[in-house]
């Protein structure tokens, strides 16, 4: 962990939030010496941090800092060259994304991550783990086998959509929604998977300001409900409002870790953002 880093759990008021199923004091996510190389390029260099359950952590830094690479390596999309990613006590490093998802670590995407020619409601139902009828034999058994289970999940999906103000769009194709609404669909879909933590890659990027605020409110509500969040975001004002703590990266390295207001005056952070100030 870098010098002057904030000990996970210390500055985080959210640590006191009730988190179902978590053991207090134990980090939910622990990244140890994570390094990702693409040929000769070191995209992430010995990155280490911990995230306590129920906290929201921002991963910030200028373009090319390696933030998205770290997020992808945690989520399993990129195989780390070295290091470990312990999530809820299990080392997920090198496992494919569906393994991380099945452990409750769900990722959303910077660019469009929706299933375009599926309706909004179907987008949410996809994420339900082990839904009856998803296996071949379950499907062949017919609606009598899986219909009731699906109906319960449809009700739950509609509740989530209502709270995301997307209830009226439930039967529309996801590709027909605006960019911001698609981001909300992704968040709703992630919630259907009953996650323990969300990895959010620029959830407010390219979204109209009013909808970005709506996304931020939704994420705040999730944080307040005790869900753990790790998000990459360029909109620093949103990060400050949303995150208990931020990790700053530059050129693949982790250069600072702490509360946003503490980091504002740090020379290395300003230098990384403003280019050698």
């Amino acid at each position, binding site marked *: 962990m870098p010098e002057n880093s904030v000990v996970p759990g210390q500055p985080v008021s959210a640590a006191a939030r009730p988190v179902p199923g978590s053991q207090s004091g134990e980090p939910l996510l622990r990244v140890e010496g994570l390094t990702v190389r693409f040929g000769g390029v070191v995209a992430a260099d010995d990155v280490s941090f911990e995230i306590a359950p129920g906290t929201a952590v921002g991963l910030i830094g200028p373009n090319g800092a390696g933030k998205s690479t770290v997020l992808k390596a945690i989520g399993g999309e990129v195989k780390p060259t070295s290091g470990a990613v312990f999530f809820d006590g299990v080392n997920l490093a090198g496992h494919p994304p569906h393994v991380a998802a099945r452990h409750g670590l769900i990722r959303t995407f910077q660019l469009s991550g929706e299933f375009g020619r599926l309706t909004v409601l179907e987008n949410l139902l996809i994420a339900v783990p082990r839904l009856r009828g998803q296996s071949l034999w379950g499907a062949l058994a017919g609606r009598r086998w899986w219909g009731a289970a699906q109906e319960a999940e449809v009700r739950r999906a509609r509740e989530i959509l209502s709270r*995301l103000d997307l209830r009226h769009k439930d039967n529309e194709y996801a590709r027909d929604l605006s960019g911001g609404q698609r981001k909300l669909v992704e968040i709703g879909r992630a919630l259907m998977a009953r996650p323990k933590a969300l990895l959010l890659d620029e959830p407010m990027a390219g979204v109209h300001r009013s909808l970005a605020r709506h996304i931020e409110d939704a994420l705040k509500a999730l944080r307040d409900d005790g869900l753990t969040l790790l998000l990459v975001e360029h909109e620093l004002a949103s990060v400050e409002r949303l995150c208990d703590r931020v990790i700053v990266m530059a050129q693949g390295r982790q250069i600072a870790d702490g509360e946003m207001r503490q980091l504002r005056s740090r020379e290395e952070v300003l230098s990384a953002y403003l280019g050698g100030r």
Partner: protein
Amino acid sequence: MDYYLLTMCVYVVVGIVACWGLNLQFGETGVLNFAYILFVAVGAYTASLFSLGPHTSASYQQYFWGTNLPWPLPWLAAGAAGGILGLLVGLLVLRRLRGDYQAMVLLVVSIMGTYLVSADPGLLNGGIGLSDVPAPFKNQLHTSQVGYELFYLGLSVVTALVIFEALRRINGSPLGRVLRAVRENEQAAEAVGLNVPAIKLLVMIIGGAVAAMAGAIEVQFIGAWAPAGWTYPETFGLFAAVLVGGRGNLGGVALGAFLVQGLFLEGTVLLPNFGSPDVIGAVQWMSLAALILLFMWFRPQGVIPERRRKFGDNEAGALHGLLPAQGLARVARGPRA
């Protein structure tokens, strides 16, 4: 009924069944199986080997093994062989390669298959192919040729209906939704916990079995099967049918198979002769290519598009307060929390 018309009807049923299997792979899951005709061929050869009887030195044709089992065992064996081939090819192709590279490797596999069978006469009688494949119940049914063809058409239609019902259940189930999610965005599907390579492997197996059933129906009807009938361009004829009919829609795909395999390809055969004897064949393939291009440009969804799965209105989820996002995680955890 007319003999030619009955023959065409059986061909159309074979085409529809084959296109349904391809629809599962390509239309619903997005797997570009450019080796699809290989699976049809494996079914045809397997059904032949399970009905021709053991090979003897007096036989005029050579094949590595054979037995004589009653219907429907040759068709079931064909389906099993297609599924096993789907498993093997899927394990070879799907796990390590990206979608476009998968398509290229599958095309290569198809070409290799044709050359392999053609090159070794001891395997499946080489380029000449197998002939005199017995037709089921033909010796027991003392009927006219047209009467038997009518019977065979009934047998084919019943088999097709069984396959249709299985595929309809998959299509309308949560599994069908999973397949369409993989088609739409593999990366996002992985991110929500779907094991994409395993799902694609499943459709390679099921689609392969369905393709092989189509081959089995065809070979016991025409009584012969040779490599010239299953070269790789045949796959594109099936793709054209799926694209024209409407991928992802079983009814649309059946219509596409009827239009492309029945009317379009057969229609060009009825053109008056002109130029060299090869011209008609060339016109057939060029017309098919033009048809694919036209649909890709002007109606990519096909004649009958995939239907949108709407859920009936249910007010159970419509309750929300002034702060809509509040309590989101509690809802997300749902009844199992």
